[in-house]
């Protein structure tokens, strides 16, 4: 009998297992293959914080969510439509987080039912009982049993079986699947690659023999060349495209994989990843390299950013170009290392004791992760300043296809000028209007000067004269005003005026826009805008805000709820961008935020928007 075919314009899939069972590999390959077939794709990793959490443990659920669509997919969606779960505990974790659609189709490994351990059997019973209260369609799959026909340890094979199953359900191009396996396991032996392909085929066969349905998410034909990668790879590749070839870092989740990628890529393209003894040394080495003529960069996350604080102030004071990528994770302190948050904005902006103006850019997509590195390098060099690029765990591990960048030699940093410095120019000869000055690089005859973090005059002589210090402060700040003049006002999505304007920044863009589109479809007069530059701010915000009755930010960081004990309008702590926008525009901006260690879902944002209409929000 021919299986029934369900046609969908988009679908969300999850693969969840215990850590170490490879659900992530399965999800990654499924996502990459789908992208390569021409589907829109957004993937998000579901990561436990520990490397080896206990088996069959809800907190240890590890895997991937892959949302595929006919058109571009900009966020991870609401709830999963199809799930492959390697045990009922990891499935329960997703169930309890309300991550699964009411009518989700679930492929569940059922070896636990007859497990030798009585405790496991009891857990299975209780788990299925809990799940039975939902209306999921659970399809049991004897994954272990089938995999054991090929491998001795099924824990090492189920992920490929699951991949085969999913590829059959979604009628993926098997040649592309095999090619992707060969690529993913390029460092492994032929034997491993062949065995994986064999397991995939078993998954396909099981689906063919047992499943009366297929799901079609037709790809869009496009002759635009595309590439697919995650945000950390895009940051690394963007850095290379910008000609940055010196990166100093200290390992920290979720930033580290930039260095993994670059360690491999620099080997071919020429460059150095210097793993320093700590984050302070890392940024110090980067500043040294920049002083010596590069625009060097460092990549870190919250706790590492805290350590780099003093050096970032020094780079600002000495006007040494520097790019700092902060892949935000949950905080404060060690916080939630593997989870997303957008809570470093104010620390990035105000982290330095003393006034330290700097540029902050927040890419919203994987593609922007790439391009923001090119912009960051250029600004850092032209303005002799620190540029911070704020990405987050969502972008870092998320995979999305985007148009292949047309590399341009003009993006590349030039070799440092080694010609003599013109007579009588000084190392901080600030242009009185713009605050800009010419950068001197060691090796340049007649340019000898001593950069110093102490207050200094235009010749870089230490000066305790109040007026000299005031001039330095003014000139370093002026550069930001000059840069802001070159920026464009952000675009407004939807009507240019209305009842509510939603303002976001960073990785939440896709989810916000999807939510706003839904609200508009329901007749609500909502528009949205998204900020790429957080410092200096893009111009025109106050004017844009004035066209809306209400303005609210949507963010992944903490804000107090007005109904909570002791919380009043006066003492309410707001989301970070909200605070900033209020100061910047004097508009009574409100906020809706959700800080659950996961990306925002359009349906949740939609709820926040609706509440703003029904209850007048928080005010």
């Amino acid at each position, binding site marked *: 009998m021919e299986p029934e075919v369900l046609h969908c314009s988009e679908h969300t899939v999850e693969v969840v297992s215990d850590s170490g069972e490879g659900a992530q590999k399965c999800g990654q390959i499924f996502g990459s293959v789908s992208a390569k077939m021409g589907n829109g794709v957004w993937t998000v990793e579901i990561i436990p914080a520990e490397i080896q959490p206990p088996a069959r443990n809800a907190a240890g659920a590890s895997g991937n969510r892959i949302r595929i669509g006919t058109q571009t997919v900009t966020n991870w969606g609401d709830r999963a439509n199809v799930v492959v779960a390697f045990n009922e505990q990891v499935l329960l974790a997703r169930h309890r987080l309300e991550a699964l659609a009411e009518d989700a189709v679930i492929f569940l490994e059922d070896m636990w039912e007859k497990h030798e351990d009585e405790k496991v059997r009891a857990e299975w019973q209780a788990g299925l009982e809990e799940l039975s209260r939902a209306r999921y369609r659970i399809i049991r799959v004897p994954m272990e049993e089938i995999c054991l026909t090929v491998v001795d340890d099924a824990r090492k094979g189920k992920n490929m079986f699951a991949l085969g199953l999913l590829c059959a359900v979604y009628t993926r191009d098997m040649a592309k699947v095999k090619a992707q396996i060969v690529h993913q396991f390029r460092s492994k032996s032929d034997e491993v690659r062949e065995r994986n392909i064999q397991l995939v085929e078993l998954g396909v066969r099981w689906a063919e023999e047992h499943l009366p349905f297929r799901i079609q998410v037709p790809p869009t034909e496009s002759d635009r060349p*595309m590439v697919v990668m995650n945000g950390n790879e895009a940051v690394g590749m963007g850095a*290379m495209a910008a000609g940055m070839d010196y990166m100093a870092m200290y390992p920290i989740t979720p930033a580290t994989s930039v260095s993994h990628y670059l360690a491999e890529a620099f080997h071919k393209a020429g460059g150095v990843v210097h793993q320093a003894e700590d984050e302070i040394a890392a940024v*110090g080495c980067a500043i040294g390299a920049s002083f010596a003529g590069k625009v060097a960069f460092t990549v870190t996350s919250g706790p590492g950013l805290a350590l780099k604080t003093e050096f970032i102030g020094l780079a600002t004071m000495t006007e040494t170009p520097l790019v700092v990528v902060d892949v935000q994770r949950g905080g404060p302190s060690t916080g939630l290392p593997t989870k997303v948050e957008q809570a470093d904005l104010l620390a990035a902006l105000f982290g330095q004791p003393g006034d330290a103006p700097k540029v902050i850019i927040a890419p919203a997509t994987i593609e922007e992760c790439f391009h923001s590195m090119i912009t960051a390098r250029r600004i850092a060099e032209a303005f002799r300043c620190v540029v911070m690029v704020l990405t987050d765990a969502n972008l870092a591990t998320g995979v999305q296809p985007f148009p292949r960048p047309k590399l341009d030699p003009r993006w590349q940093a*030039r070799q440092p000028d080694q010609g003599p410095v013109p007579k009588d120019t000084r190392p901080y000869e600030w242009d009185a209007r713009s605050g800009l000055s010419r950068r001197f690089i060691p090796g340049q005859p007649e340019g000898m000067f001593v950069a110093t973090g102490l207050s200094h005059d235009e010749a870089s002589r230490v000066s305790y004269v109040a007026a000299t210090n005031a001039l330095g402060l003014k000139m370093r700040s002026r550069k930001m005003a000059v840069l802001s003049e070159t920026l464009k006002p952000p675009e407004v999505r939807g009507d240019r005026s209305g009842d509510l304007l939603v303002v976001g920044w960073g990785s939440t863009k896709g989810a916000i826009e999807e939510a706003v589109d839904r609200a508009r479809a329901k007749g609500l007069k909502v528009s949205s805008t998204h900020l790429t530059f957080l410092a200096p701010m893009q111009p025109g915000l106050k004017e844009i805000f004035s066209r809306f009755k209400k303005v609210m930010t949507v963010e992944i960081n903490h804000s107090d709820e007005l109904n909570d004990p002791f919380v009043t309008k006066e003492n309410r702590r707001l989301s970070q961008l909200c605070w900033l926008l209020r100061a910047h525009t004097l508009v009574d901006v409100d906020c809706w935020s959700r800080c659950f260690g996961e990306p925002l879902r359009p349906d949740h944002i939609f709820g926040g928007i609706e509440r703003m209409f029904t209850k007048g929000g928080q005010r």
Partner: protein
Amino acid sequence: MSGSQFSLLDGDVCGDERHLTIEDYSSAVPRWCPGCGDHSALGAMQRLLESEQLKREKTVFCSGIGCSSRFPHYLKTYGFHGLHGRALPVATGIKMTRPDLNVFAIMGDGDCCSIGLGHWLHAVRYNVDMVAMLLDNNIYGLTKNQTSPTTPQGHKSNTQQQGSYLPALNPLSATLGITNCSFVAQTSDWTPAHLFQTLKAAFHHKGFSFVRVLQRCPHFTAGIYQDAVRHPDNVELLTHSAGICEPEAEGLYKNHISHDPSDLHEARRLAEGGNGKFRLGLFFRDESRPRYNETRALPKYTAEEKIEILNAELDRYAV
């Protein structure tokens, strides 16, 4: 550290063609207290620059924060007067990306042995080609008389008014204890000729040259090196044909210890001291140790070549 071995940049522009004098290497007038040992260290350094005729534009002095870290301001070279304790990371970044530059790092004892200790010990292991000079006055000078890790036990300071509680940290032993250590010497500000010869040997050593200068601070630790200054008997000079040979010191100090600087074991024993005497000379040198700046040297590609490589990289991610 050897001079500019190779140039990173094509069409290297020559700076100074004429013979440079000490004055040419001098910048602002030093603001240290009269009698401060830093004056002598600066003089020896200027002599080194002059005798080696180092290109001023190809030379960078990095420092931290402290009286001693004012050093770069008094030299007519490039300089980076950075953060307390953090001269070495900056110097490392410079040398890794610009092997054509002569790099020096100047630190105080608080700088190097307290707040910057992590960087110091790791720098020894990286063995990046540079001269690191520790100006050790056994005290925090700039911040006015606080105990440092090298303050002798019992010495009174503003923070430890009953006398320093802990035995002093021995920077020589610490350095010699680190894997990949390649050059360790000790000299003093009151033996300027020996100081100069030590810097010269350090400069010519390929690798991380650690020089501890016993530096007098008449302001806060006036008595500390008095025994050695007044009574040459309290000094032991390490001599060897492969070590630092300086006739003036050899004449002044009668206690000679013949020490082969390739002998790490003996170097460690001598560094421990034990008899209350001050030992000056070259403790250890090994040019065969791997240098991180060379292992990690940046290959050169043009922008066009890079784009070609990058395009191949993008191919791997092509849809």
